[in-house]
């Protein structure tokens, strides 16, 4: 029953993260208590990117193998990614409201990046919904995933550099964050990042296993 112990272990890790994230000093003194959200917000944002990467990898594989399973893997990762993306956007927006007084601003590059990912996920899922035939569904959506990808590095790497020339103040938030990742902050953050990543892969695996089982049953009938 190794699996059971691993799952319980994951819960212990996450419970630990929750406990220590609230009982240790806040990560960022200037912003204060609200900065605790970074323990959760950043892993969520990280996972939207990971999920998109997995979606992309299986999209490329699907175009080669044309295996329905690969298409499912791609689709399921996109579903999970969308969920994490929504959570990251909401948590980021709440944090922005508390820190800067606005729910949204276009001058913060991170907000822009997560917004782009949200758009791409939304477009991907809308596209899938709009195509009736299963074969075309997989091929077309895989193509779109690949096609939309070049936009992402643009917004994660190029935009911030362009914006820094206009809004130098925004880099302060990042600098401060990494600056104060000392003491208790770094270990809690890393454990959080690790645990949520494991959680994502567990959810990914669950969906795929369930799908395989359903396929096998369908074939029997």
């Amino acid at each position, binding site marked *: 029953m190794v699996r059971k112990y691993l799952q319980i272990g994951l*819960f212990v890790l996450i419970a630990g993260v*929750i406990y220590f994230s*609230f009982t240790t000093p806040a990560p960022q003194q200037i912003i204060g208590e609200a900065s605790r959200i970074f323990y959760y917000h950043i892993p969520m944002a990280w996972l939207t990117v990971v999920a998109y990467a997995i979606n992309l990898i299986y999209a490329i594989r699907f175009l080669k193998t044309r295996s329905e399973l690969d298409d499912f893997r791609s689709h399921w990762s996109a579903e999970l990614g969308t969920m994490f993306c929504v959570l990251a956007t909401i948590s980021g927006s709440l944090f922005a409201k508390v820190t800067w007084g606005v729910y949204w601003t276009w001058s913060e590059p991170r907000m822009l990046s997560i917004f782009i990912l949200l758009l791409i996920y939304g477009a991907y899922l809308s596209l899938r919904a709009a195509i009736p035939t299963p074969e075309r569904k997989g091929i077309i959506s895989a193509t779109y995933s690949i096609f939309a990808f070049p936009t992402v590095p643009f917004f994660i790497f190029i935009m911030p550099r362009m914006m820094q020339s206009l809004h130098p103040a925004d880099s302060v938030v990042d600098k401060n964050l990494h600056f104060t990742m000392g003491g208790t902050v770094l270990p809690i953050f890393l454990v959080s990042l690790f645990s949520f990543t494991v959680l994502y892969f567990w959810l990914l695996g*669950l969906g795929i296993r369930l799908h395989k089982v359903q396929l096998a049953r369908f074939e029997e009938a």
Partner: protein
Amino acid sequence: MSSNYTVMFANLVIWAGIFLFLFRLDKKVSDLEKRK
């Protein structure tokens, strides 16, 4: 400071719930896999 503890306990309860759900789901899927 006490509001911190409220949020923390709320989080723990919610995540305990999520994990219980996932444990059961995983068990169900494992059972289905074994039957194959």
